[in-house]
Protein backbone atom coordinates (compact mmCIF):
# COMPACT_ATOMS: atom_id res chain seq x y z
CA UNK A 1 0.00 0.00 0.00
CA UNK A 2 2.76 2.32 1.06
CA UNK A 3 4.68 1.50 -2.05
CA UNK A 4 1.60 1.98 -4.20
CA UNK A 5 0.97 5.46 -2.86
CA UNK A 6 4.60 6.34 -3.44
CA UNK A 7 4.31 5.07 -7.00
CA UNK A 8 1.25 7.22 -7.52
CA UNK A 9 3.05 10.28 -6.19
CA UNK A 10 5.98 9.70 -8.50
CA UNK A 11 3.60 9.15 -11.40
CA UNK A 12 1.58 12.27 -10.71
CA UNK A 13 4.70 14.42 -10.55
CA UNK A 14 6.15 13.04 -13.76
CA UNK A 15 2.72 13.17 -15.37
CA UNK A 16 2.22 16.81 -14.44
CA UNK A 17 5.43 17.65 -16.27
CA UNK A 18 4.28 15.66 -19.32
CA UNK A 19 1.03 17.61 -19.09
CA UNK A 20 2.91 20.89 -19.44
CA UNK A 21 4.73 19.59 -22.48
CA UNK A 22 1.43 18.29 -23.86
CA UNK A 23 -0.06 21.74 -23.35
CA UNK A 24 2.83 23.20 -25.33
CA UNK A 25 2.08 20.77 -28.17
CA UNK A 26 -1.68 21.37 -28.01
CA UNK A 27 -1.34 25.16 -28.08
CA UNK A 28 0.71 25.05 -31.25
CA UNK A 29 -1.56 22.48 -32.85
CA UNK A 30 -4.61 24.57 -32.09
CA UNK A 31 -3.17 27.78 -33.36
CA UNK A 32 -1.49 26.57 -36.56
CA UNK A 33 -2.32 22.86 -37.10
CA UNK A 34 1.34 21.99 -36.78
CA UNK A 35 2.70 19.06 -34.79
CA UNK A 36 5.65 20.82 -33.28
CA UNK A 37 8.65 18.62 -32.64
CA UNK A 38 10.76 21.72 -32.25
CA UNK A 39 9.01 22.09 -28.88
CA UNK A 40 11.50 19.60 -27.46
CA UNK A 41 14.41 21.68 -28.72
CA UNK A 42 12.84 24.90 -27.48
CA UNK A 43 12.37 23.40 -24.01
CA UNK A 44 16.00 22.32 -24.07
CA UNK A 45 17.27 25.70 -25.23
CA UNK A 46 15.20 27.58 -22.64
CA UNK A 47 16.39 25.24 -19.92
CA UNK A 48 19.97 26.08 -20.87
CA UNK A 49 19.04 29.74 -20.56
CA UNK A 50 17.54 28.96 -17.16
CA UNK A 51 20.70 27.15 -16.10
CA UNK A 52 22.85 30.08 -17.19
CA UNK A 53 20.70 32.57 -15.29
CA UNK A 54 20.71 30.32 -12.26
CA UNK A 55 24.50 30.25 -12.37
CA UNK A 56 24.69 34.05 -12.56
CA UNK A 57 21.94 34.96 -10.13
CA UNK A 58 21.84 31.97 -7.85
CA UNK A 59 18.08 32.14 -7.71
CA UNK A 60 15.70 29.58 -9.13
CA UNK A 61 12.97 32.19 -8.86
CA UNK A 62 14.72 34.46 -11.31
CA UNK A 63 15.85 31.63 -13.58
CA UNK A 64 12.38 30.14 -14.09
CA UNK A 65 10.59 33.28 -15.34
CA UNK A 66 13.55 34.26 -17.51
CA UNK A 67 13.58 30.79 -19.04
CA UNK A 68 9.85 31.04 -19.68
CA UNK A 69 10.33 34.37 -21.37
CA UNK A 70 13.17 32.95 -23.44
CA UNK A 71 11.00 29.99 -24.42
CA UNK A 72 8.22 32.35 -25.48
CA UNK A 73 10.60 34.46 -27.57
CA UNK A 74 12.30 31.47 -29.21
CA UNK A 75 8.97 29.89 -30.02
CA UNK A 76 7.47 33.09 -31.44
CA UNK A 77 10.63 33.57 -33.48
CA UNK A 78 10.30 30.13 -35.02
CA UNK A 79 6.65 30.65 -35.83
CA UNK A 80 7.27 34.01 -37.40
CA UNK A 81 10.32 33.19 -39.46
CA UNK A 82 9.80 29.55 -40.39
CA UNK A 83 6.29 28.23 -39.98
CA UNK A 84 4.37 31.28 -41.12
CA UNK A 85 6.10 31.53 -44.50
CA UNK A 86 5.84 27.76 -44.90
CA UNK A 87 2.13 27.63 -44.12
CA UNK A 88 1.40 30.67 -46.26
CA UNK A 89 3.11 28.96 -49.10
CA UNK A 90 1.25 25.70 -48.77
CA UNK A 91 -1.99 27.67 -48.77
CA UNK A 92 -5.08 27.53 -46.61
CA UNK A 93 -5.92 23.92 -47.50
CA UNK A 94 -3.06 22.71 -45.41
CA UNK A 95 -3.92 19.05 -45.81
CA UNK A 96 -0.34 17.95 -45.81
CA UNK A 97 0.63 17.89 -42.18
CA UNK A 98 3.68 15.78 -43.02
CA UNK A 99 5.63 18.72 -44.40
CA UNK A 100 5.31 20.99 -41.34
CA UNK A 101 6.11 18.00 -39.09
CA UNK A 102 9.29 17.44 -41.04
CA UNK A 103 10.10 21.14 -40.95
CA UNK A 104 9.85 21.13 -37.16
CA UNK A 105 12.00 18.00 -37.03
CA UNK A 106 14.58 19.92 -39.04
CA UNK A 107 14.31 22.81 -36.60
CA UNK A 108 14.77 20.40 -33.70
CA UNK A 109 17.95 19.16 -35.33
CA UNK A 110 19.24 22.67 -35.88
CA UNK A 111 18.48 23.76 -32.32
CA UNK A 112 20.30 20.73 -30.96
CA UNK A 113 23.25 21.29 -33.27
CA UNK A 114 23.48 24.95 -32.22
CA UNK A 115 23.32 24.00 -28.54
CA UNK A 116 25.98 21.39 -29.17
CA UNK A 117 28.11 24.02 -30.82
CA UNK A 118 27.72 26.42 -27.91
CA UNK A 119 27.95 23.95 -25.06
CA UNK A 120 29.85 21.01 -26.47
CA UNK A 121 30.45 18.61 -23.63
CA UNK A 122 29.52 21.08 -20.93
CA UNK A 123 26.25 20.59 -19.18
CA UNK A 124 23.72 22.98 -17.68
CA UNK A 125 22.90 22.48 -14.03
CA UNK A 126 19.58 23.16 -12.36
CA UNK A 127 19.77 21.65 -8.89
CA UNK A 128 16.51 21.26 -6.97
CA UNK A 129 15.59 24.60 -5.34
CA UNK A 130 14.03 22.73 -2.41
CA UNK A 131 14.93 19.49 -0.71
CA UNK A 132 14.14 16.41 -2.70
CA UNK A 133 14.25 14.24 0.41
CA UNK A 134 10.87 12.69 1.03
CA UNK A 135 8.90 13.56 4.14
CA UNK A 136 9.03 11.01 6.92
CA UNK A 137 5.69 9.46 7.76
CA UNK A 138 5.60 7.03 10.71
CA UNK A 139 9.27 6.30 10.37
CA UNK A 140 9.31 5.76 6.61
CA UNK A 141 10.31 8.18 3.91
CA UNK A 142 7.55 8.76 1.36
CA UNK A 143 7.89 9.93 -2.21
CA UNK A 144 6.42 13.33 -1.40
CA UNK A 145 9.20 15.87 -0.97
CA UNK A 146 9.24 19.66 -0.81
CA UNK A 147 10.55 19.59 -4.39
CA UNK A 148 7.64 17.49 -5.60
CA UNK A 149 5.17 19.79 -3.87
CA UNK A 150 6.86 22.72 -5.54
CA UNK A 151 6.65 21.08 -8.97
CA UNK A 152 3.00 20.19 -8.54
CA UNK A 153 2.34 23.70 -7.25
CA UNK A 154 4.01 25.36 -10.23
CA UNK A 155 2.16 23.17 -12.70
CA UNK A 156 -1.15 23.76 -10.94
CA UNK A 157 -0.57 27.51 -10.82
CA UNK A 158 0.26 27.62 -14.52
CA UNK A 159 -2.85 25.68 -15.37
CA UNK A 160 -5.00 28.04 -13.36
CA UNK A 161 -3.41 31.03 -15.06
CA UNK A 162 -3.89 29.45 -18.48
CA UNK A 163 -7.52 28.66 -17.72
CA UNK A 164 -8.17 32.24 -16.67
CA UNK A 165 -6.40 33.60 -19.73
CA UNK A 166 -8.31 31.32 -22.06
CA UNK A 167 -11.74 31.68 -20.49
CA UNK A 168 -11.75 35.22 -19.16
CA UNK A 169 -9.61 37.47 -21.34
CA UNK A 170 -9.85 38.96 -24.80
CA UNK A 171 -6.59 37.28 -25.71
CA UNK A 172 -8.08 33.95 -24.69
CA UNK A 173 -11.24 34.52 -26.72
CA UNK A 174 -9.12 35.47 -29.72
CA UNK A 175 -6.95 32.38 -29.28
CA UNK A 176 -9.96 30.09 -29.09
CA UNK A 177 -11.79 31.73 -31.99
CA UNK A 178 -8.71 31.81 -34.22
CA UNK A 179 -8.10 28.12 -33.66
CA UNK A 180 -11.70 27.05 -34.29
CA UNK A 181 -12.42 29.29 -37.26
CA UNK A 182 -9.57 31.43 -38.55
CA UNK A 183 -11.53 32.88 -41.45
CA UNK A 184 -14.52 33.98 -39.39
CA UNK A 185 -12.12 35.39 -36.82
CA UNK A 186 -10.40 37.49 -39.45
CA UNK A 187 -13.76 38.75 -40.65
CA UNK A 188 -14.52 39.68 -37.04
CA UNK A 189 -11.36 41.76 -36.98
CA UNK A 190 -9.02 39.41 -35.11
CA UNK A 191 -5.42 39.69 -36.29
CA UNK A 192 -5.11 35.95 -36.63
CA UNK A 193 -1.43 36.01 -37.60
CA UNK A 194 -0.56 37.87 -34.43
CA UNK A 195 -2.74 35.59 -32.34
CA UNK A 196 -1.00 32.55 -33.78
CA UNK A 197 2.34 33.96 -32.81
CA UNK A 198 0.95 34.56 -29.32
CA UNK A 199 -0.21 30.92 -29.18
CA UNK A 200 3.30 29.79 -30.06
CA UNK A 201 4.78 32.12 -27.46
CA UNK A 202 2.59 30.73 -24.67
CA UNK A 203 3.47 27.24 -25.86
CA UNK A 204 7.15 28.13 -25.66
CA UNK A 205 6.75 29.34 -22.08
CA UNK A 206 4.91 26.16 -21.08
CA UNK A 207 7.58 24.04 -22.74
CA UNK A 208 10.35 25.96 -20.99
CA UNK A 209 8.70 25.33 -17.63
CA UNK A 210 8.34 21.65 -18.47
CA UNK A 211 12.04 21.55 -19.38
CA UNK A 212 13.19 23.21 -16.16
CA UNK A 213 10.97 21.04 -13.98
CA UNK A 214 11.98 17.87 -15.82
CA UNK A 215 15.60 18.76 -15.18
CA UNK A 216 15.32 19.48 -11.46
CA UNK A 217 13.00 16.51 -10.97
CA UNK A 218 15.48 14.26 -12.77
CA UNK A 219 19.23 14.31 -12.76
CA UNK A 220 19.51 18.07 -12.15
CA UNK A 221 21.59 18.57 -15.27
CA UNK A 222 21.02 18.91 -19.00
CA UNK A 223 23.16 18.22 -22.03
CA UNK A 224 22.35 18.99 -25.67
CA UNK A 225 21.86 15.28 -26.36
CA UNK A 226 19.86 14.78 -23.18
CA UNK A 227 17.79 11.62 -23.29
CA UNK A 228 15.41 13.08 -20.72
CA UNK A 229 14.36 15.67 -23.25
CA UNK A 230 13.64 13.18 -26.00
CA UNK A 231 11.55 11.43 -23.39
CA UNK A 232 9.78 14.64 -22.44
CA UNK A 233 9.02 15.39 -26.08
CA UNK A 234 7.74 11.92 -26.90
CA UNK A 235 5.67 11.54 -23.75
CA UNK A 236 4.37 15.08 -24.04
CA UNK A 237 3.25 14.42 -27.58
CA UNK A 238 1.72 11.05 -26.67
CA UNK A 239 -0.11 12.71 -23.77
CA UNK A 240 -1.43 15.41 -26.08
CA UNK A 241 -2.71 12.81 -28.54
CA UNK A 242 -4.31 10.74 -25.78
CA UNK A 243 -6.06 13.89 -24.61
CA UNK A 244 -7.40 14.63 -28.07
CA UNK A 245 -4.72 17.07 -29.35
CA UNK A 246 -7.24 19.95 -29.34
CA UNK A 247 -7.96 20.20 -25.66
CA UNK A 248 -5.97 21.70 -22.80
CA UNK A 249 -7.95 19.69 -20.26
CA UNK A 250 -7.29 16.63 -22.40
CA UNK A 251 -3.57 17.38 -22.37
CA UNK A 252 -3.58 17.45 -18.57
CA UNK A 253 -5.61 14.24 -18.30
CA UNK A 254 -3.40 12.58 -20.91
CA UNK A 255 -0.21 13.61 -19.10
CA UNK A 256 -1.43 12.42 -15.71
CA UNK A 257 -2.75 9.12 -17.13
CA UNK A 258 0.53 8.47 -18.84
CA UNK A 259 2.63 9.48 -15.83
CA UNK A 260 0.69 7.31 -13.38
CA UNK A 261 0.46 4.19 -15.55
CA UNK A 262 4.11 4.39 -16.53
CA UNK A 263 5.14 4.78 -12.88
CA UNK A 264 3.12 1.70 -11.98
CA UNK A 265 4.67 -0.30 -14.79
CA UNK A 266 8.13 0.90 -13.86
CA UNK A 267 7.56 -0.19 -10.26
CA UNK A 268 5.78 -3.49 -10.74
CA UNK A 269 6.61 -4.80 -14.21
CA UNK A 270 9.97 -3.62 -15.38
CA UNK A 271 11.78 -0.65 -16.77
CA UNK A 272 12.32 -1.95 -20.28
CA UNK A 273 8.59 -2.12 -20.98
CA UNK A 274 7.87 1.53 -20.14
CA UNK A 275 8.21 2.78 -23.70
CA UNK A 276 6.19 0.01 -25.17
CA UNK A 277 3.55 0.59 -22.52
CA UNK A 278 3.27 4.19 -23.66
CA UNK A 279 2.51 2.92 -27.14
CA UNK A 280 -0.04 0.41 -25.82
CA UNK A 281 -1.83 3.01 -23.72
CA UNK A 282 -2.02 5.32 -26.71
CA UNK A 283 -3.34 2.72 -29.10
CA UNK A 284 -5.85 1.38 -26.57
CA UNK A 285 -7.21 4.86 -25.95
CA UNK A 286 -7.39 5.57 -29.67
CA UNK A 287 -9.09 2.26 -30.43
CA UNK A 288 -11.86 3.19 -28.04
CA UNK A 289 -11.87 6.86 -28.96
CA UNK A 290 -10.08 7.63 -32.24
CA UNK A 291 -10.28 11.32 -31.40
CA UNK A 292 -8.69 11.03 -27.95
CA UNK A 293 -10.24 11.42 -24.51
CA UNK A 294 -11.59 14.92 -25.05
CA UNK A 295 -11.33 15.11 -28.82
CA UNK A 296 -14.12 16.48 -30.96
CA UNK A 297 -15.54 14.26 -33.65
CA UNK A 298 -14.82 16.70 -36.42
CA UNK A 299 -11.35 17.22 -35.01
CA UNK A 300 -10.08 14.49 -37.26
CA UNK A 301 -10.58 16.55 -40.36
CA UNK A 302 -7.39 18.51 -40.10
Amino acid at each position, binding site marked *: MFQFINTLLIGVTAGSIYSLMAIAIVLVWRSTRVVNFAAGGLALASSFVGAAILEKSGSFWIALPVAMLAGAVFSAFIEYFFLRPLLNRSGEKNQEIFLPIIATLGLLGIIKAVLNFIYGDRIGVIPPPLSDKGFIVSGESIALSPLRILILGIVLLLMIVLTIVFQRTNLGL*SLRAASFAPEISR*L*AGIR*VDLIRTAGWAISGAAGATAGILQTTNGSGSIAPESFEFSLLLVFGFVAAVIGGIESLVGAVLGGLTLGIILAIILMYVGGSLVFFAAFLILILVLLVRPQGIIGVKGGRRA
Partner: protein
Amino acid sequence: MLKIENLTVDHGAIRALHGVTFNIEKGQLAAVIGANGAGKTTLLRTLSGLNKASEGAAHWGEHNILHAKPESLVRHGISHVSEGKSVIPELTVADNLDLGALWRRNRKEAAKSKQDVVDLFPRLGERLSQRADSLSGGERQMLAIGRSIMSKPELLLLDEPSLGLAPLVIEQIFQAIRELTTAMGLTVLLVEQNAMGALKIADIGIVLNLGSIAATGSAAALRDDPAVRAAYLGF
Protein backbone atom coordinates in the same frame (compact mmCIF):
# COMPACT_ATOMS: atom_id res chain seq x y z
CA MET B 1 -20.35 55.14 -51.82
CA LEU B 2 -19.18 51.69 -52.91
CA LYS B 3 -17.64 51.96 -56.33
CA ILE B 4 -16.59 48.84 -58.20
CA GLU B 5 -14.87 49.06 -61.55
CA ASN B 6 -13.96 46.32 -63.94
CA LEU B 7 -13.48 43.83 -61.11
CA THR B 8 -11.99 40.56 -62.34
CA VAL B 9 -11.24 37.59 -60.09
CA ASP B 10 -9.71 34.21 -60.86
CA HIS B 11 -9.66 30.98 -58.89
CA GLY B 12 -6.61 29.47 -60.47
CA ALA B 13 -7.65 28.75 -64.03
CA ILE B 14 -11.31 29.52 -63.42
CA ARG B 15 -12.35 33.12 -64.01
CA ALA B 16 -15.17 33.73 -61.53
CA LEU B 17 -15.77 37.44 -62.22
CA HIS B 18 -15.30 39.15 -65.59
CA GLY B 19 -14.95 42.90 -65.35
CA VAL B 20 -17.82 43.65 -62.98
CA THR B 21 -18.72 47.34 -62.61
CA PHE B 22 -21.40 48.90 -60.40
CA ASN B 23 -21.99 51.50 -57.70
CA ILE B 24 -24.00 51.55 -54.50
CA GLU B 25 -24.95 54.80 -52.78
CA LYS B 26 -24.50 55.20 -49.03
CA GLY B 27 -27.50 53.94 -47.13
CA GLN B 28 -28.78 51.80 -49.96
CA LEU B 29 -29.72 48.16 -49.75
CA ALA B 30 -28.46 46.46 -52.90
CA ALA B 31 -29.36 42.89 -53.81
CA VAL B 32 -27.02 40.83 -55.97
CA ILE B 33 -28.94 37.92 -57.43
CA GLY B 34 -27.85 35.10 -59.64
CA ALA B 35 -27.83 31.33 -59.95
CA ASN B 36 -25.51 29.00 -58.13
CA GLY B 37 -21.95 29.50 -59.39
CA ALA B 38 -22.64 32.97 -60.78
CA GLY B 39 -19.79 34.46 -58.74
CA LYS B 40 -21.77 36.09 -55.92
CA THR B 41 -19.67 34.63 -53.11
CA THR B 42 -16.50 35.45 -54.99
CA LEU B 43 -17.63 39.07 -55.28
CA LEU B 44 -18.20 39.41 -51.54
CA ARG B 45 -15.02 37.58 -50.60
CA THR B 46 -13.03 39.88 -52.84
CA LEU B 47 -14.60 42.98 -51.32
CA SER B 48 -13.83 41.78 -47.79
CA GLY B 49 -10.24 40.92 -48.59
CA LEU B 50 -10.51 37.12 -48.46
CA ASN B 51 -9.89 36.69 -52.19
CA LYS B 52 -7.42 38.52 -54.39
CA ALA B 53 -8.61 40.43 -57.43
CA SER B 54 -6.77 39.98 -60.72
CA GLU B 55 -7.84 43.29 -62.20
CA GLY B 56 -10.03 46.27 -61.49
CA ALA B 57 -10.66 48.58 -58.57
CA ALA B 58 -13.02 48.83 -55.64
CA HIS B 59 -13.43 51.89 -53.42
CA TRP B 60 -15.46 52.41 -50.28
CA GLY B 61 -15.67 56.18 -50.08
CA GLU B 62 -12.10 57.35 -50.56
CA HIS B 63 -10.71 54.06 -49.39
CA ASN B 64 -9.22 51.58 -51.87
CA ILE B 65 -10.36 48.24 -50.50
CA LEU B 66 -8.60 45.81 -52.82
CA HIS B 67 -5.32 44.43 -51.52
CA ALA B 68 -6.35 45.05 -47.90
CA LYS B 69 -6.71 42.31 -45.31
CA PRO B 70 -10.12 41.43 -43.88
CA GLU B 71 -9.04 42.30 -40.36
CA SER B 72 -8.09 45.81 -41.40
CA LEU B 73 -11.15 46.32 -43.60
CA VAL B 74 -13.31 45.62 -40.54
CA ARG B 75 -11.59 48.55 -38.90
CA HIS B 76 -12.62 50.66 -41.88
CA GLY B 77 -16.27 49.78 -41.49
CA ILE B 78 -16.62 46.87 -43.90
CA SER B 79 -18.04 43.72 -42.40
CA HIS B 80 -18.70 40.44 -44.17
CA VAL B 81 -21.08 37.71 -43.03
CA SER B 82 -19.79 34.77 -45.00
CA GLU B 83 -21.82 32.04 -46.64
CA GLY B 84 -23.46 29.41 -44.44
CA LYS B 85 -24.17 30.81 -40.96
CA SER B 86 -20.86 32.30 -40.17
CA VAL B 87 -20.69 31.63 -36.44
CA ILE B 88 -18.23 29.66 -34.33
CA PRO B 89 -20.25 26.73 -32.96
CA GLU B 90 -17.80 25.92 -30.14
CA LEU B 91 -18.19 29.37 -28.58
CA THR B 92 -21.13 30.76 -26.64
CA VAL B 93 -23.51 33.25 -28.20
CA ALA B 94 -22.03 36.01 -26.04
CA ASP B 95 -18.48 35.09 -27.08
CA ASN B 96 -19.49 35.03 -30.75
CA LEU B 97 -20.89 38.52 -30.37
CA ASP B 98 -17.98 39.87 -28.34
CA LEU B 99 -15.58 38.55 -30.95
CA GLY B 100 -16.82 41.16 -33.42
CA ALA B 101 -15.95 44.01 -31.07
CA LEU B 102 -12.63 42.86 -29.60
CA TRP B 103 -10.69 45.29 -31.75
CA ARG B 104 -12.75 48.28 -30.65
CA ARG B 105 -11.07 50.43 -28.04
CA ASN B 106 -14.18 52.06 -26.73
CA ARG B 107 -15.78 49.42 -24.50
CA LYS B 108 -18.81 51.58 -23.80
CA GLU B 109 -19.70 51.83 -27.47
CA ALA B 110 -19.10 48.12 -27.87
CA ALA B 111 -21.57 47.47 -25.08
CA LYS B 112 -24.05 49.70 -26.84
CA SER B 113 -23.63 47.72 -30.04
CA LYS B 114 -24.42 44.59 -28.10
CA GLN B 115 -27.60 46.23 -26.86
CA ASP B 116 -28.47 47.10 -30.47
CA VAL B 117 -28.05 43.47 -31.48
CA VAL B 118 -30.20 42.22 -28.61
CA ASP B 119 -32.86 44.79 -29.48
CA LEU B 120 -32.82 43.70 -33.10
CA PHE B 121 -32.80 39.96 -32.28
CA PRO B 122 -34.35 39.46 -28.83
CA ARG B 123 -33.98 35.70 -29.19
CA LEU B 124 -30.21 36.07 -29.05
CA GLY B 125 -30.51 38.02 -25.82
CA GLU B 126 -32.23 35.06 -24.19
CA ARG B 127 -29.49 32.67 -25.25
CA LEU B 128 -26.31 34.60 -24.53
CA SER B 129 -24.72 31.89 -22.39
CA GLN B 130 -25.63 28.99 -24.68
CA ARG B 131 -23.15 27.49 -27.09
CA ALA B 132 -23.81 28.56 -30.66
CA ASP B 133 -24.17 24.96 -31.82
CA SER B 134 -27.36 24.73 -29.75
CA LEU B 135 -29.04 27.41 -31.86
CA SER B 136 -31.50 26.82 -34.68
CA GLY B 137 -30.50 27.71 -38.23
CA GLY B 138 -32.35 31.02 -38.13
CA GLU B 139 -30.85 31.96 -34.77
CA ARG B 140 -27.39 31.18 -36.08
CA GLN B 141 -27.94 33.50 -39.01
CA MET B 142 -29.11 36.19 -36.59
CA LEU B 143 -26.00 35.59 -34.52
CA ALA B 144 -23.80 35.90 -37.59
CA ILE B 145 -25.40 39.21 -38.52
CA GLY B 146 -25.26 40.27 -34.88
CA ARG B 147 -21.54 39.55 -34.71
CA SER B 148 -21.13 41.74 -37.76
CA ILE B 149 -23.06 44.59 -36.17
CA MET B 150 -20.75 44.37 -33.15
CA SER B 151 -17.98 45.63 -35.47
CA LYS B 152 -20.01 48.80 -36.03
CA PRO B 153 -19.96 48.48 -39.81
CA GLU B 154 -20.91 51.09 -42.37
CA LEU B 155 -20.96 48.59 -45.23
CA LEU B 156 -22.42 45.16 -44.57
CA LEU B 157 -21.76 42.28 -46.98
CA LEU B 158 -24.27 39.46 -46.52
CA ASP B 159 -23.88 36.14 -48.29
CA GLU B 160 -27.15 34.23 -48.71
CA PRO B 161 -28.59 34.74 -45.23
CA SER B 162 -31.79 32.92 -46.28
CA LEU B 163 -30.03 29.71 -47.26
CA GLY B 164 -31.73 26.65 -45.80
CA LEU B 165 -34.17 28.57 -43.61
CA ALA B 166 -37.94 28.21 -43.31
CA PRO B 167 -40.04 30.86 -45.11
CA LEU B 168 -41.21 32.46 -41.87
CA VAL B 169 -37.69 32.79 -40.54
CA ILE B 170 -36.50 34.18 -43.87
CA GLU B 171 -39.17 36.84 -43.57
CA GLN B 172 -37.89 37.82 -40.11
CA ILE B 173 -34.28 37.97 -41.23
CA PHE B 174 -35.11 40.04 -44.31
CA GLN B 175 -37.13 42.41 -42.11
CA ALA B 176 -34.15 42.83 -39.84
CA ILE B 177 -31.84 43.48 -42.79
CA ARG B 178 -34.19 46.14 -44.10
CA GLU B 179 -34.21 47.70 -40.66
CA LEU B 180 -30.41 47.88 -40.66
CA THR B 181 -30.57 50.27 -43.60
CA THR B 182 -33.66 52.22 -42.66
CA ALA B 183 -33.12 52.55 -38.92
CA MET B 184 -29.36 52.28 -38.51
CA GLY B 185 -28.29 53.83 -41.82
CA LEU B 186 -26.03 50.98 -42.97
CA THR B 187 -25.19 50.30 -46.58
CA VAL B 188 -25.92 46.67 -47.37
CA LEU B 189 -24.78 44.45 -50.20
CA LEU B 190 -27.05 41.42 -49.99
CA VAL B 191 -26.23 38.36 -52.07
CA GLU B 192 -29.14 35.98 -52.64
CA GLN B 193 -30.38 33.09 -54.69
CA ASN B 194 -33.78 33.84 -53.23
CA ALA B 195 -34.19 36.59 -55.83
CA MET B 196 -37.82 37.43 -55.15
CA GLY B 197 -37.35 37.89 -51.41
CA ALA B 198 -34.20 39.95 -51.87
CA LEU B 199 -35.66 42.22 -54.53
CA LYS B 200 -38.68 42.86 -52.33
CA ILE B 201 -36.60 44.53 -49.62
CA ALA B 202 -33.80 45.96 -51.75
CA ASP B 203 -33.49 49.46 -53.22
CA ILE B 204 -31.49 48.37 -56.23
CA GLY B 205 -30.75 45.02 -57.83
CA ILE B 206 -27.76 43.63 -59.67
CA VAL B 207 -28.13 40.45 -61.70
CA LEU B 208 -25.00 38.38 -61.99
CA ASN B 209 -24.70 35.68 -64.62
CA LEU B 210 -21.60 33.52 -65.11
CA GLY B 211 -19.40 36.17 -63.59
CA SER B 212 -20.74 39.14 -65.54
CA ILE B 213 -23.44 41.65 -64.83
CA ALA B 214 -26.59 40.77 -66.81
CA ALA B 215 -28.80 43.60 -65.59
CA THR B 216 -28.91 46.39 -63.02
CA GLY B 217 -31.65 48.74 -61.99
CA SER B 218 -34.01 49.62 -59.24
CA ALA B 219 -35.28 46.57 -57.41
CA ALA B 220 -38.84 47.33 -58.44
CA ALA B 221 -37.91 47.63 -62.11
CA LEU B 222 -36.03 44.34 -62.02
CA ARG B 223 -38.97 42.62 -60.39
CA ASP B 224 -41.12 43.72 -63.32
CA ASP B 225 -38.56 42.96 -66.02
CA PRO B 226 -39.89 39.96 -67.96
CA ALA B 227 -36.43 38.63 -68.78
CA VAL B 228 -35.33 38.76 -65.14
CA ARG B 229 -38.61 37.23 -64.04
CA ALA B 230 -38.21 34.35 -66.45
CA ALA B 231 -34.59 33.67 -65.60
CA TYR B 232 -34.41 34.29 -61.86
CA LEU B 233 -37.82 34.66 -60.33
CA GLY B 234 -39.30 31.57 -61.86
CA PHE B 235 -42.56 32.96 -63.24
